[in-house]
């Protein structure tokens, strides 16, 4: 089978304007993956399925991954003008100081597709797509029109991670009920306060019961 670099070259030759990045995998298995830009994802997917040599006709696994916003503290050298007394005379001197600055790298949601070929009996080729952020730019193109096996799995990602797949024929919640609001597989998901009455609360349950009572008293939760 072709290596990921060769597959990247083949995609870029076949699909005009497609941006493909190799994401290395440091684990011993070394299954490197290809990051596809969402705009060309549909044509890239069709190319991967229809190409004579790759013939990736079997989409085995589709899954989501959540990466939170990261706060990175960096030490940056900054030069600034400081007035200092040198030999009794006030002078402006340039001084280099190290300063710690915090910068927020926006998180993203990722969809990972594991492709195999049944006719050529090779694989896996792993492709990924990333959303812009975790809040308002969560749309990705659906690959269900290319591989039907993504139908339920993309619905599951929509349900549990909150990625909206454009072009999916039937995008509804699959495991949670329709009225459910949150996305339980996100890493910052907070369980709802669904305390149930216990006749003899003890230990942790007692603590939760007291918290719940306080919330009810404050009008934040229902009885």
């Amino acid at each position, binding site marked *: 089978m072709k290596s990921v670099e060769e597959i990247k070259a083949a995609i870029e030759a076949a699909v005009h304007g497609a941006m493909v990045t190799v994401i290395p995998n440091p*684990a011993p298995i070394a*299954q490197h993956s290809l990051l596809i830009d969402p705009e060309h994802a549909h044509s890239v997917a069709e190319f991967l399925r229809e190409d004579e040599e790759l013939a990736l006709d079997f989409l085995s*696994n589709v899954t989501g*991954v959540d990466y939170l916003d990261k706060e990175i503290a960096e030490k940056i050298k900054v030069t600034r003008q400081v007035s200092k007394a040198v030999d009794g005379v006030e002078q402006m001197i340039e001084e280099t100081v190290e300063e710690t600055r915090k910068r927020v790298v926006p998180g993203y949601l990722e969809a990972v597709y594991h492709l195999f070929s049944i*006719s050529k009996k090779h694989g896996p080729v792993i492709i990924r797509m990333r959303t812009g952020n975790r809040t308002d730019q969560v749309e990705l193109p659906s690959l269900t029109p290319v591989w039907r096996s*993504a139908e339920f799995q993309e619905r599951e990602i929509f349900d549990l991670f909150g990625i909206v797949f454009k072009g999916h024929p039937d995008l509804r919640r*699959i*495991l949670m009920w329709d009225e459910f609001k949150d996305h339980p597989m996100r890493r910052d998901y907070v369980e709802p306060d669904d305390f149930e009455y216990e006749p003899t609360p003890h230990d942790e349950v007692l603590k939760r019961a007291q918290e719940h009572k306080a919330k009810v008293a404050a009008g934040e939760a229902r009885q």
Partner: protein
Amino acid sequence: MSSSGMKTEKLPGWNRPPVIDTDGEGELLEVAMGPHHPSTHGVFRMDVVLDGERVIRLKPVFGYLHRNHEQLGQSQSYLASMPYTDRLDYFCSLTNNWAYALAVEKLVGQEVPERAEYLRVILAELTRVQNHASTIGFLLQEMGASGTPLMYAFREREKILDLFESLTGSRMMCNYMRFGGCRVDASPAWLEATRKVVAGLPAFVDEFERFLMTNEILMARCQGIGILRPDLAVNAGISGPMLRGSGVNYDIRKIDHYGIYDRFKFRVPLGDHGDIYDRYMVRMLEMRESISILNQALKELPGGPVMDPKAKIRNFRPKPGEAYGRIEAPKGELGFYLISDGSPNPYRYRVRPPSLINLTVLEDMCLGSNVADVVLIFGSVDIVLGEVDR
């Protein structure tokens, strides 16, 4: 047919369920089959739209058994997820264990001793035999042969579960495999008992096969019904006996040679028509191949440790990276996808459930057939809800 003949011009929507026209008489009836229907093998619902007896539309509804297994897996250490994998497909806990152990072993580059590999093969094939036997038993049960044929299958399953119990301590929730081997060694007495059970299996399969081969009612109700085209099966990610029942030659034991499957001689049974009957016949023939693998493995079983002495157990923190491990479970391709960020818990723990993905084409297979056939078509997919809903 081989999948090479699939390179034809594909119109958009070729892989979507067709639209079935009504006959224009009477009203359409919407029926919720399930969630508490004996034929749904658990809590599962099919919203079926009927025109008389014909199925016009069918939408599966999942989630009644959802417990966010993946979130549980991410909130605990790698090893602590092992007993939870038993609860996915509770008919085949040992193959679930193997798939998970394989994924973690790929993630950290762990070797498995020879004897442990053989024990894994023996247990996985025993699991396959009991799963397929029960599935065929359920078919007969659903067709109205109430009780007796299913009990034939369960009698044999009981013998295999007794073996599991004496080796692992549990009949169904085995929790037997570890990263780098197996938990306990098999005693000579256990191996002797296993040989005895395996020696009795061909007679059982012969006896059981007569239900499929000679029963006229069964053939009338199974042949030519619930047909799945091979090109659609491949495109919809169908795996396991269902894919092979449609005639696509794809067995992960033959493709990946995970474990030591390259050492055994076995054939991959294929169907011709992709109907219910072929799917069950493939399972029946697979049981025979499994018995052949079992005989080979029990003959060649070497001595030695069952656990790699260098395997890391305490403070198990895989280096950052990811791995996808998959095996040919009795129901299809069972895969585990793990991402490690260097901490003791997996950053991402994903189960690729064959039962859920095999249901993708349920609507396509049922459209246009009678409502009574839906039960049989659904049964021929062979699902366990613990794995579908996770």
